[in-house]
């Protein structure tokens, strides 16, 4: 299968448009809002006693020059877009000499680890459960799984997380309450004891993410399965006398998996938003919790930088799925874009 270049170009053009919109929103919103992060920082410092009101004016001017706030608006915009596209996201205001890109680098792998694992697990479990429930020749007992799964899918993960923390971590003491690893162990990635503690800490945040999405995957899979079961080629396969398991795996499952992959790409935004909140609840050292911290500290460059980074991640993943999809499904036509 060859994908026409026009399809690829169209998708990449769309990606650029998404990034450009995200960067523009990041630039415009703070300009529209009559809120001055520099002044707020100075007020905080004066209130904290680390800055006298005489030094404030000078500090203010130097900060404004540093962030380019003394230049005309269009120039600021061009500089901002240029910097953003080179992934220069500026400096944190609260932890000053630290770059936003450094902060992202320190936290992103924590998030990727538990979010990726729980999403893949949820996708697999949900797809299998949904397929078994939807296929009419499996035990009716499977359908009892659906109501609780649907219920869990409706309740946001960070709300479930509160219950898990209280009952499983605080009461039963099966899991740690917060954080990404035990503070009593040295942070050493080659130490198996440290790795074990990382897994132990990731278990509850992962479970909160997993329970929420399993329901969605199984509901989607079930209705696809019901639709496919009514198709003529299934009846034909049965008439040919094929074994039930062969019809299930080769005929039904294969055809229902494709829409699931598409919705995986569509769900990414929701998954990332959910992970942000789950991390905040668990104080997990990931990018979402860092975003939460930046919001509380009014550290605007960090807020905008992390949001932009997440949008880039989601847009890139969507592009990859768009490009892989024609290989997975030979029936698809590319011209639609």
């Amino acid at each position, binding site marked *: 299968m060859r994908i026409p270049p026009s399809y690829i170009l169209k998708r990449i053009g*769309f990606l650029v*448009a*998404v990034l450009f*919109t*995200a960067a523009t*929103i*990041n630039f415009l*919103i*703070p300009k*529209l*809002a*009559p*809120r001055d992060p520099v002044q707020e920082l100075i007020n905080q410092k004066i209130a904290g006693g680390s800055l006298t009101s005489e030094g404030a004016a000078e500090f203010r001017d130097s900060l404004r020059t540093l962030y380019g706030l003394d230049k005309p608006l269009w120039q600021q915009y061009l500089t901002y877009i240029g910097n953003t596209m080179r992934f220069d996201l500026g400096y944190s205001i609260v932890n000053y000499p630290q770059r936003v890109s450094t902060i992202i680098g320190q936290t992103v792998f924590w998030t990727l680890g538990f979010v990726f694992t729980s999403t893949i697990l949820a996708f697999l479990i949900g797809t299998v459960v949904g397929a078994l*429930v*939807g296929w*009419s020749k499996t035990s009716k007992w499977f*359908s009892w799984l*659906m109501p609780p799964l*649907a*219920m869990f*899918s*409706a*309740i*946001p993960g*960070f*709300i479930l997380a*509160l*219950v898990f*923390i*209280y009952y499983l*971590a*605080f009461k039963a003491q099966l899991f740690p*309450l917060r954080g990404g690893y035990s503070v009593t162990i040295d942070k050493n990635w080659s130490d198996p004891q440290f790795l074990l503690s990382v897994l132990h800490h990731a278990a509850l945040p992962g479970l909160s993410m997993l329970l929420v999405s399993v329901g969605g995957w199984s509901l989607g899979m*079930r*209705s696809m399965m*019901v639709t496919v079961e009514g198709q003529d080629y299934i009846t034909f396969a049965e008439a040919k006398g094929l074994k039930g398991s062969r019809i299930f795996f080769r005929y039904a499952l294969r055809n229902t998996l494709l829409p699931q992959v598409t919705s995986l790409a*569509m769900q990414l*935004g*929701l998954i*990332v*938003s959910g992970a*942000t*909140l789950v991390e*905040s*609840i668990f104080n997990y050292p990931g990018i979402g919790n860092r*975003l*939460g911290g930046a*919001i*509380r500290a*009014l550290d*605007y460059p960090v*807020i*905008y930088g992390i*949001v932009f980074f*997440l*949008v880039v991640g*989601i*847009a890139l993943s*969507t592009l990859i799925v768009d490009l892989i999809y024609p290989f997975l499904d030979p029936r698809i036509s590319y011209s639609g874009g």
Partner: protein
Amino acid sequence: MQRGQGFRGFLNYIRRNPAFGGGLVLLLLLLLFSTVTTIFIPREGAYPLAVMPRQAPSAEYPFGTDSVGRDLLPTLIYGTQMTLSIGMIAGVIGLGVGTVLGFMTGYFGGLFDTIVKFLVDVLMTIPSFLLLIIIASSVPNPEEMGVVRMGLILSIVAWVQPTRAIRAQVMSMRERAFVMMAKLSGMSGMEIIIKELMPNLMPYLAISLAGAVNGGVLGSLGLQTLGIGNLREPSLGMTIYWLRYYNAFLQGYWWWIVEPVTVIAAIFIAFLLLSIGLDEFANPRTRRTV
């Protein structure tokens, strides 16, 4: 739709569509809990220093109190009221804008459709929650942010999904025979939209409304849990923010955790049941006995 008329017919319909009935009852209970009770329970108890802090549920404080001295019963009553109102404002505006844009673009097409479709596609890729974080964290005077302002902020993203869903429905209906008939009989585009398409899409509009209100509630809870918005008002999201801030887990204040979680879960389950029920109403063909 159903045999029988009026309330009797409605009850008969509910019997065949228990999800819809369950969702309706649950939502009604939540509305009663957050409105009727306000006659007996004053709002003052929902603010810090109103009552003795850290009390487990008792005869005096049936829901217990938190560690800054909020009585949790009024906190949850007024919190539910605030959170549902925020969702309602966002949902109604979102659906309103989505309906207008969806019908305009889906029926007339053209350059306007191309622009709106592109915008919707872009906004579907950028997670609305992240967009909300940017907008809501930049709003001035968060300490004065009331229900209306929060609802308006959420409505900035609430129109995207309804626009997309309604546009797709209108496009699929545009070529049907009854629309052709209406065109031949000389009806104008606007007339066809209002007299022919709108009534046929009512169930879809109801589903979109449930989805948009649900999205508004979810968005407001998420923002408030991160500490964006009015920290003093007792909305449900802020209750979550404060129980996390004061580490209710480590102190073993189970009531402070279990109660808001139960109310929030009830809200989302009510919307889940309503949308399952409405979906069954809109697509009778999906009826099955799995």
